[in-house]
C-alpha cells in the first residue's frame, strides 16, 4: 500500500520476566515486520520502555497499537511517527585505515560529529550517534575505506518539548480498572 512508512512506537510495559517475549511474539504472530527494537528501563521504577520501528501503513499501524494494547502487561502504546520527536541510533564502525587514510577519516568523523574511540595500526573504530539516516550517510562515505565490522543499536525515540500534563503517563499505581 501507498502509505507504508517506517513507524515508531513507544511502548511502556511492566518490568517482569517474559514481557519482551510477549511483545515480540505478537509482532511475529500478526506478521508485523520489526525493523528495530530496543528495550531499557524508563524513568519510572517497575516500568520498561520499548521503542519499536516497523514498516506499516496507517491501518496496520492502528492494529499494531490495538494489538499491543491487548497484552495484559502493556501499560501504554504511543505511535509517535508523526509527532515532533528525537530519534537516535548508536553505531560502532571499524574501518580499515592505514596511516595515509587516517587524517581523511578523522575529518569525515568531525563532519558527522562522530568520534574515533579506538585506534589500531591498520584500523579505526568510530562511534556515531544520530538519527538512523545520519548513520546510513556516514556508512556510505566510509564504505570506500573498507568497513571491517559494524554494529548498530535500534532506534530510541522521544517526543520533543515537555509532555502536556493531560498526556503524561500516570504512574502505574494510579491506574485502576473497574
Amino acid at each position, binding site marked *: 500500500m501507498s502509505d507504508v512508512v517506517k513507524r515508531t512506537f513507544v511502548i511502556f*510495559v*511492566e518490568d517482569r520476566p*517474559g514481557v519482551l*517475549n*510477549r511483545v515480540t*511474539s505478537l509482532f511475529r*504472530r500478526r506478521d508485523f515486520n520489526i525493523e528495530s527494537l530496543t528495550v531499557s528501563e524508563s524513568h519510572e521504577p517497575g516500568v520498561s520502555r520499548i521503542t519499536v520501528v516497523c514498516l506499516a501503513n496507517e*491501518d496496520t499501524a*492502528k*492494529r499494531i497499537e*490495538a*494489538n499491543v*494494547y*491487548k*497484552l*495484559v*502487561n*502493556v*501499560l*501504554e502504546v504511543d505511535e509517535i511517527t508523526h509527532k515532533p520527536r528525537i530519534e537516535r541510533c548508536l553505531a560502532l564502525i571499524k574501518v580499515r585505515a592505514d596511516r595515509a587514510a587516517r587524517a581523511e577519516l578523522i575529518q569525515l568523523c568531525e563532519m558527522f560529529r562522530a568520534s574515533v574511540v579506538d585506534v589500531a595500526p591498520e584500523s579505526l573504530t568510530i562511534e556515531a550517534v544520530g538519527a538512523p539516516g545520519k548513520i546510513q550517510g556516514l556508512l556510505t562515505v566510509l564504505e570506500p575505506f573498507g568497513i571491517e565490522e559494524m554494529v548498530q543499536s535500534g532506534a530510541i525515540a522521544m517526543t520533543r518539548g515537555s509532555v502536556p500534563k493531560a498526556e503524561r503517563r500516570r504512574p*502505574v*499505581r494510579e*491506574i*485502576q*480498572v*473497574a
Partner: protein
Amino acid sequence: MSSNAPNPTEPAPLSRETMPDRRGEVLTGAQIIWEVLLREGVDVVFGYPGGAIMPAYDAMIQYPIRHVLVRHEQGASHMADGYARASGQVGVCVATSGPGATNLVTGIATAMLDSSPIVCITGQVGANLLGSDAFQEIDITGVTLPITKHNYLVTSVDEIVPVMREAFYIARSGRPGPVLVDICKNAQQESTTFEWSDEPVTLPGYRPVYVPKDDHVAQALELIAKAKRPVILAGQGVVKSGATEALTRFVDASGIPVACTLLGLGGFPASHAQNLGMMGMHGEAWVNTAIQEADLLLAFGMRFDDRVTGNLKTFAPGARKVHVELDPSEINKNVKVDVPIIGDLKKVLELMQPGLTGVERPAWTARIAELKGDSAVRDIQHLPDLGKLYAAHVIHDLWRLTEGRAVVVTDVGQHQMWEAQYYHHDEPRSLITSGGLGTMGFALPAAIGARFAADPGKSVWVVVGDGGFQMTACELTTCVQEDIKVNIAIINNGFLGMVRQWQEFFYGGRYVATPIKSPDFVKLADAHGLKGMRVESRADLAAAVREAEAHPGTVVIDFRVEQEDSVYPMVPAGADLGDMIKRPRRVDGRVAQHNPIFETGEDR
C-alpha cells in the same frame, strides 16, 4: 478393617454452605488453589492427575468441587470450553506438567479462536528445577503464549491467590479467552496464610471495557436512517454480551433483516421473521446475495472471518459498514469499515435504540423475498423416502423431535454445516461448535462440559462425524464413569466427508485418504455398557431419537447416511461471496442422484 472406620472413598458430602471460612489460616498452596476456585464460583473441573499436580489433587477431596476424570487432557480443555460456552461462566481444566499440559493445547487454541473463557491449571516441576529439562518439564507458558489471552508461571505459594484471581478476571472480562496458570510443585507444597479480599482485581495495563463514542453512534444512526438496503450481520458477540433481547428490539424497531454467522446462530431467534439465516461459505444463497447487494452492513459482534466474507476485494462492494465490536484490534483487520463503534454490543444497541426510526423499505423487502424464492423452504418433510438416509433428514427430524429445544454440540465437517442449516436455533447458547479453529474431536468432550452447565431439563445432543468421533471417542468411558448423559448422533458417511467434498469439487474427484473405516459403533457403545443403536432408513429415525431421549444413560446412534452427499450451497474458499455452487435442483421432475435436498416451494 472395622465396619465403623471411615471409608476413604466415601467422604462426608461437602457443600459450599458448610465449608469453613479459612481466611487467616495457614494453608498449603494446594489447598489455596481450591479455596480460590470455590470463591470464583467453580462447581466442576475437568482434569487428569500426574506427578507435578498431585499435591493439588490430594487437597481436592477437602472441597465441594466435582472433578471429572477425562481420558485425554484434550478432552479436559474441550470440556471446560463446552461448559463455558453453555453457561457463559469460566470453565476450568486441570492437568499435570509436560505431556498433560501439551495435551491441553488443541483445546486451548479452540477456546482462543472462539473467545471462550477457560482457566487451565497445570502442574509444573519445582521452581528450583525450572530450565533444567527435568522429568516432564515443558515450558507450557512459552508453548501457549500465542494461544492464550494471558498466562502465568507461579513459582511460590504467595503468588497463587493474586495470580488465580487475575486469571479468572482476565478470562471472563472484555473479549473472553483462555488463561493458563502453570503452578510449580513447590508452590503447591509450601504453606502460607490464606488471605482473600473481594476487592475488584486491578491490573495497571488491562483495559477490557471501552465506552462507545457518541459521534460514532450518531453516525451509525444516520447511516441506518438513510439506508435503502441494510443487513445486520450478527455474530457470537450477540451471545457473549447477552444481547439477544436488545437485538430483537433493535430489529423490531428498525425492520432490518439479520444474517447470522455460524457462531451467531441462536443469538437471534431462527424463527424471527427478519432472520434470513446463516451467511458465509455454506450460508444460504439468498443471504449471501442480500449481503452483496446491501448498501449498509451493520456488523454486530462478528469479525469478518474469511469463511464469512469470501473474497475480501469483492465483499459487499456497495455497502457502507458499521462495525460494533468489543476488541479494537478487530477494527479494519479484514474489512475496512466506515463507522467503528467499540464497546459492549448490548450497551451499544441500547444506546442506539432511542435513535431508531421505523423506515419502510418495501423494495428491499420485496427483493429479499424474491431472492429467497422457492429456496427458502426446503422440502425435507415430504421428500420421498428413497430408502436412503440423508444427513439433512437426521438433523431436520432431530430438530422437530426435540422441538428445537436441545443443546446441540457439533463436531467439524459436513454434519456441522448441515446442523447449522437444518437445526433452527431459537435460543442463545443452544448451539456449541468450534468455528474459528474448526477442531475435529471437539463435540463429545464439549458436550460433556455443556451437560454440566445446560438447563437440566434440556437434552444435550452431540452431532458428530464418523471421523471426528474417533478422535475423542475415549471420552465415552468418561460418560460411564462420571454418570453423564448425552445423546450422540454419529453422522456416519464412511468418509472424511467435508474433505471428500472438496476433492469432488476441486481435486478431480480423487478421494485421497478420505474413505475412513470405523469400528462398529453399536458394539463400541455396548463395550462401554452404553446403549447403542443403528439407523439406516428414515423410517427408523424417530423411534431411535425418542428412545435415546428416554434412556437414562449416554446413547450412541450410528446414523448410516448417504456416503457421497455434499453440503450446498458453497462459496469456494477465496471466491466472491455471491459466487456459489448452488444446491442442484430437481431435473425433469427427478432428483439428481446424490442430491436429494432439492428446492421446492413446499413447507419445510
